[in-house]
């Protein structure tokens, strides 16, 4: 019994969204992700407008150059991802594998850089709760070179970038799985749903970063 909607790819019909289930599903799921980040960004807007004096200038505490490199990495991984997808659309297994591996590596590198960023920041005394007592940054603040307190700045910084990082990490995990399947030749010119679905997720995470990078690091 082949249910018409279960066939792939679906014929153009009056019913359905003209796309296969997994693709529709991931788009719908991304809708909920949008709302999740809306909650975080909404909270950020509220505390930022409510307590602007808690914010340091760009590059005062956060390391914008390092993050710029990270942004560069994520954009690169997005392009390799989409190239992977384009390759398998043409049925090119080799290139699919190559680009997938590249994406995994760049994605992992992003997480690595972020981990480095976090450790440095914590080391300097920038915590989710504000300055660490007696730290380098706390001293600067005492001398008036930094805002007296950065508690909500730290809170929103770590929460927003942390959850983004968590999403990237989950993406990397899933992508490792897709890559493994790619090496086993499971994707074909006709059926490569996994690649497209993980790709959509990955680009979405990139998109979120583009917004976060601007509002967290630059403004």
């Amino acid at each position: 019994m082949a249910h018409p909607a279960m066939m792939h790819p679906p014929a153009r019909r009056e019913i359905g969204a003209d796309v296969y289930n997994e693709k529709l599903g991931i788009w719908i799921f991304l809708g909920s992700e949008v709302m999740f980040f809306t909650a975080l960004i909404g909270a950020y807007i509220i505390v930022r407008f409510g307590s602007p004096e808690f914010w340091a200038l760009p590059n005062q505490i956060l390391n914008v150059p390092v993050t710029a490199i990270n942004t560069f990495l994520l954009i690169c991984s997005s392009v390799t991802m989409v190239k992977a997808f384009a390759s398998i659309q043409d049925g090119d297994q080799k290139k699919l594998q190559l680009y997938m591996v590249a994406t995994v590596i760049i994605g992992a590198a992003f997480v690595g850089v972020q981990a480095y960023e976090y450790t440095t920041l914590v080391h300097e005394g920038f915590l989710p709760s504000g300055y660490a007592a007696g730290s380098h940054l706390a001293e600067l603040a005492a001398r008036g070179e930094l805002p007296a307190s950065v508690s909500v700045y730290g809170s929103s910084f770590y929460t927003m970038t942390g959850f983004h990082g968590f999403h990237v990490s989950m993406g990397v995990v899933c992508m490792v799985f897709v890559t493994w399947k790619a090496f086993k030749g499971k994707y074909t010119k006709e059926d490569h749903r996994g690649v497209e679905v993980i790709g959509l997720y990955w680009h979405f995470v990139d998109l979120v970063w583009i917004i976060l990078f601007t509002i967290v690091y630059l403004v």
Partner: protein
Amino acid sequence: MSEGQSHAHPNYWAVWVYLLVLTVVELGVAFLPWSKQVLLLTLLAMAIWKALLVALFFMHLKWEGNRMRIFAIAPLPLTVIIVLAVLTEYVW
């Protein structure tokens, strides 16, 4: 995805370069001595422009059917609603 075979791939590398250029410009603008409001608006506009590029080209929204696009943009009004409402706490 049925478009796969039929149309040639868009030039992803061009989009990539476009994104990188925008990022570099953004980095430059962020440290200009402009007023806070102007900076905020310029940077936000650029970020949204970049996000759009990703959505349209990498996520292929440019080529999706209308039914699919509706799903993609459906939550956006809701994000605007909450942001506008909480902003009124400060601007009134």
